[in-house]
């Protein structure tokens, strides 16, 4: 039975219950409420899952597509100066609304050959070290930094572990906490786990409407917790990984609208919305002095987390 079938069945049951109550004058409101909540919970699964599928749509605009659409010029820089150049992360200098910015983003590729070369945006240590280098360059020259997140996660491979992918992600996070220029992050597609977060430490974090951002892929979560990768839709719903969810949870700052049907149906419209949002946030951040930017960014992330207190419930935000 598919989830759609299950929902249909539950809704039939609801209708019957209501009819029964009407015809027999019995109070079944408790039963009805319970069923309605169940329907809501289950039907959120497909909706979240739809978002995940949209976020992964093969025609969805990539970082390079947005750079084409948003930037007047993009000068790509390559290499980590240590061992290699990882095509799963692109970066360089770009001209955005008349100003130079440093940009870094995951790149999935725009056709099968590119997908393969880019490993579908799954970056390794060389990618994150290139990213840190480019952000460092931006920082030295006082350039605002824009990052684009679009990865299923860091590449899981032997070589990645040999080259200390864990340390590379940690260093990239640590590096971003040190940057003295404004950093705006845009989650444009998949925001997969530590591999996404490694370039996600921003003063502002924006998300496209159909992007997702999660600690683990729905499939991975379903495999571990449900013992069945097929339960990914339910995991997707449970993880609250959609843009509206994350706005609600206070982890992102803004949801950038996409054209109906998703960004791939009208990339220019999506880019237009993104441009407006980036510009607005960069303008706001320009007013903040560098030292204060670093403090605010540190406090922002110091404040993230929700615990239950023995004495009180704490909702930790904005550095307490």
């Amino acid at each position, binding site marked *: 039975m598919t989830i759609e079938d299950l929902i249909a069945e539950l809704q039939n049951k609801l209708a019957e219950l209501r009819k029964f109550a009407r015809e027999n004058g019995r109070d079944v409101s408790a039963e009805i409420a319970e069923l309605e909540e169940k329907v809501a919970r289950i039907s959120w699964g497909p909706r979240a899952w739809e978002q995940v599928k949209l976020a992964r749509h093969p025609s969805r605009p990539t970082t390079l597509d947005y750079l084409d659409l948003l930037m007047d010029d993009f000068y790509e820089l390559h290499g980590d100066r240590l061992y290699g150049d990882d095509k799963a992360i692109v970066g360089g200098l770009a001209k955005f609304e008349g100003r130079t910015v440093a940009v870094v983003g995951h790149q999935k590729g725009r056709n099968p050959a590119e997908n393969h070369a880019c490993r579908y945006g799954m970056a390794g240590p060389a990618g994150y070290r290139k990213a840190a280098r480019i952000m460092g360059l931006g920082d030295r020259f006082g350039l605002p930094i824009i990052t684009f997140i679009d990865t299923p996660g860091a590449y899981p*491979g032997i070589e990645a*572990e040999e080259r200390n992918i864990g340390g590379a992600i940690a260093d990239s996070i640590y590096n971003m906490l040190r940057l003295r220029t404004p950093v705006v992050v845009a989650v444009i597609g998949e925001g997969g786990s530590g591999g996404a977060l490694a370039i996600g430490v921003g003063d502002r974090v924006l998300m496209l409407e159909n992007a997702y951002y999660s600690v683990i892929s729905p499939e991975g979560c379903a495999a571990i*917790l449900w013992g069945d990768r097929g339960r990914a839709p339910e*995991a997707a719903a*449970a993880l609250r990984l959609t843009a509206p969810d994350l706005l609600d949870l206070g982890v992102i700052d803004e949801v950038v609208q996409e054209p109906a049907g998703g960004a791939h149906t009208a990339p220019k419209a999506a880019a237009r919305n993104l441009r407006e949002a980036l510009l607005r946030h960069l303008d706001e951040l320009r007013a903040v002095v560098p030292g204060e930017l670093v403090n605010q960014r540190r406090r922002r992330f*110091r404040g993230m987390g*929700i615990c*239950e207190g023995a004495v009180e419930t704490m909702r930790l935000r904005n550095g307490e």
Partner: protein
Amino acid sequence: MKISWFRRQQYVQVKLDQRGEQGALWVKCAGCGDLVFRERVREKHGVCPRCGAYFFLTAQERISLLVDEDSFVDVSRPIVAADPLGFTDCRPYLERLKEAQDRTGLPNETVVGRARMGNTPVVLAVTDFRFIGGSMGSVMGEQLSCAMDIAAQELSPFVLVSSTGGARMQEGIFSLMQMVKTAAARRDLERACVPFVSVMTYPTTGGVFASIASLGDVAIAEKGALIGFAGRRVIEQTTGERLPSDFQTEAFAFDHGIVDRVVERTKLREELIRVLSFFPVGRSP
């Protein structure tokens, strides 16, 4: 700043639950396959008296392995995990939490405290793998961050002993964000010029490895540790690569420049006392 929390002190709240899995007199060693007397294993800090294999240590056992006797003062914040997503898979997250609390006798997976090591005051943080895989959610992030704040404020070295599978996925995005939160606290530690020694044990993986555990001034791997970012199965499935036999072992981490040193469990205390003796704590250069 909730300074008040920093002042709160109480003696070890870590209680070792004697029932359940901890109850049996004998325990089977995964190393030699023999049944060994549990009390003997405990006396030897979780080292098999027959073959030398390591058992998991509870947070309490780990602490008593490392600190000067009776010197540990628990300064963990009085917080427990919330369920910010209302997460339910086969079981509700809150139920899993309750079960972990009952089984371990711990309110959560992280224990932090002031202690002394060879008479040097330190702030020590330990994670307990029995508690939902020692995974990092908002509580661990907050406990570690507060521990680093105390260390920074009191100019005491910070020692973190990790035993964790990574992220607490039931807390979703909040779990992920703890990677940045702990890194941000570590930044304050650096600014205060306070040393941070990261000890990686079996296992130190996923999001904890890819954040705070990798940010030590000195990184020490316990012998037998498992150290890495991605899980073996994920790597095999994604790449079809056959993993080398030493993959993600402590020797692999050492050979690839990921940790400074590999230390046997029974020598870990002396090692920490020794490394801490080199740092002129609180001297601001």
